[in-house]
């Protein structure tokens, strides 16, 4: 190519050059016959291409139908965009937004108080107490993968997105309690404990009763039970009456966030499954059907997995577990035969305990003496004064 300007000719021909470039090309065309010939050629080709394009048949109507069906099938993928546009679209909707903001603020404030109360409540163990009003925009992960036609063509697209779920956060606690009791008779206590649990509608899930082999070993047993969540506190109270409480603890895990999340995901997956089933019923090309079938089985698998998790979480909230440890109250009996290390350890602890005991007693005695010091001092003072007076009287006596 001899003229750099010749490269601009296609864009001169289609009329998209700016004024400066157009002037350059026109100058060149005026003086260069080969450029002018080139332009004629380009114009002829351009016209042919244009004519060919104009003669092309219109696109089949089913392309639009297909696109419409597919955009109907993406309900949540662009939920946030839809929310934005739906809310800011018309002034009337400002009110909705304002009301929502106010509502959220109020809920937040209320939640704050709830949280304060929670923290203040004694004995209440709460896992997480984060923000209490939860916005959940769940994206269906599979939606992107499915590139097949969708049936729900008549679903109203213009309707605003599903409003965000405003969930006033509740505590859904999976509670676990541990209770250690010192009892007079382990067998009796075990029987009573099972009675208490049975009366509360609970079940024993594990029992470990170690009957002592030697007379000097204390009898111990552990019992794991499950009781309805609402019955946990009364059951614990009744169990505590069976002996002397050595240790009592309650752990709680807040499963609310995961349960809400599971429910939202399940809803989406079930909706997707319904749509896919409708697609299957409609039939079509074999490859499409196979794709739908594959997606359907993927979705089903996910639903089952999620459902199992969901049920398990719900069950953990609905029932609380108690681990009960019972030990026979025999001060002289060794709980088990200690090994050499344990014995040295025991001796050390006994020594330290004895030392601490002695020092405590000594300190107590000193404190006691200091506290009572005024009495003997007073007596001593009175006695001293009396003796002095008596002595003086004898000395002055004739």
């Amino acid at each position, binding site marked *: *190519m001899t003229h750099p300007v*010749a*490269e*601009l*000719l*296609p*864009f001169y*021909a*289609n*009329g*998209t*050059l700016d004024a400066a470039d157009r002037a350059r090309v026109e100058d060149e065309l005026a003086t260069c016959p080969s450029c002018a010939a080139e332009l004629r*050629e*380009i114009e002829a*080709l*351009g016209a*042919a*291409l*244009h*004519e*060919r*394009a104009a*003669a*092309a048949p*219109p*696109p*089949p109507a*089913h*392309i*639009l139908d*297909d*696109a*419409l069906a*597919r*955009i109907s099938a*993406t309900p949540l*993928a*662009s939920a946030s*965009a*839809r929310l*934005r*546009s*739906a809310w800011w*679209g018309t002034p009337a909707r400002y009110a909705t937004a304002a009301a929502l903001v106010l509502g959220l603020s109020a809920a937040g404030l209320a939640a704050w108080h709830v949280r304060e109360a929670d923290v203040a409540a004694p004995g209440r163990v709460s896992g997480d107490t984060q923000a209490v009003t939860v916005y959940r925009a769940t994206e269906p992960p599979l939606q992107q993968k499915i590139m097949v036609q969708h049936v729900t063509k008549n679903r109203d*697209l*213009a309707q605003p997105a599903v409003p965000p779920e405003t969930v006033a956060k509740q505590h859904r606690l999976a509670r676990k309690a541990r209770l250690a009791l010192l009892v007079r008779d382990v067998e009796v206590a075990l029987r009573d404990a099972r009675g208490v649990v049975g009366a509360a509608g609970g079940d024993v899930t594990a029992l470990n009763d170690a009957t002592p082999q030697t007379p000097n070993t204390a009898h111990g047993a552990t019992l794991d039970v499950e009781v309805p969540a609402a019955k946990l506190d009364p059951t614990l109270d009744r169990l505590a009456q069976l002996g002397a409480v050595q240790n009592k603890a309650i752990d709680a895990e807040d499963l609310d966030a995961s349960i809400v999340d599971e429910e939202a995901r399940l809803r989406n997956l079930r909706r997707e499954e319904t749509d896919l089933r409708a697609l299957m019923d409609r039939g079509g090309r074999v490859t499409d059907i196979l794709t739908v079938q594959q997606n359907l089985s993927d979705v089903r698998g996910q639903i089952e997995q999620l459902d199992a998790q969901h049920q398990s979480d719900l069950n953990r909230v609905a029932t609380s577990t108690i681990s009960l440890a019972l030990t026979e109250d025999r001060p002289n009996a060794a709980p088990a035969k200690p090994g050499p290390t344990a014995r040295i350890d025991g001796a050390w602890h006994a020594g330290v305990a004895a030392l601490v005991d002695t020092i405590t007693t000594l300190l107590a005695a000193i404190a006691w003496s200091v506290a009572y010091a005024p009495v003997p001092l007073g007596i001593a003072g009175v006695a001293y004064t009396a003796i002095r007076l008596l002595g003086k009287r004898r000395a002055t006596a004739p």
Partner: protein
Amino acid sequence: MTDGEDRTLLAEIAQRDRVAFETFFAAHGAAVHRFVRDLVHDGGLAEELTSDVMVQVWRSAAKFAGRSRVRTWLFGIAHHKAIDALRRRRVPTVPLDAMLSIASDAEGPDDAALRAEDRDRLAAALASLSPEHRAVLELTFVEGFSQKEIADIVGAPAATVKTRAFYAKARLRDVLAAAEQTR
């Protein structure tokens, strides 16, 4: 349809307006379909891709930044989808000889048939070009985009587009001349 009208439509599509979406398809669907069909040379695939492009328009309408004309943005999507499909499916470029023999099967002595024959020959010649050359010719001569706009659409420097347009045209001319000789 002016760019202003396109922008209005796109704003309505961003608000999930289905009627606006159908209007947009009526205005640009044919051009997009023609463009991707010429790029991929596969009717069925071109229909799928056109549908893909429209779905992408629906999804991304709210994200249109307004830095270019709507048509430039739209053809950018179409070009991307078509080139992507070509890479994935490795649609072969039809050998020139095969296309020329098909093209010379045109029938009838009347005017319309002759024009149809010319069009077939042109189609065959286009088919023998690389997708990049086909794209730049279509975008320049059929869709009337500027050098800068084509650079945006195909994602290449403006200078490359200029050279590519020049060589694409030269190649097309040579192929057509060769076909003329074999007649």
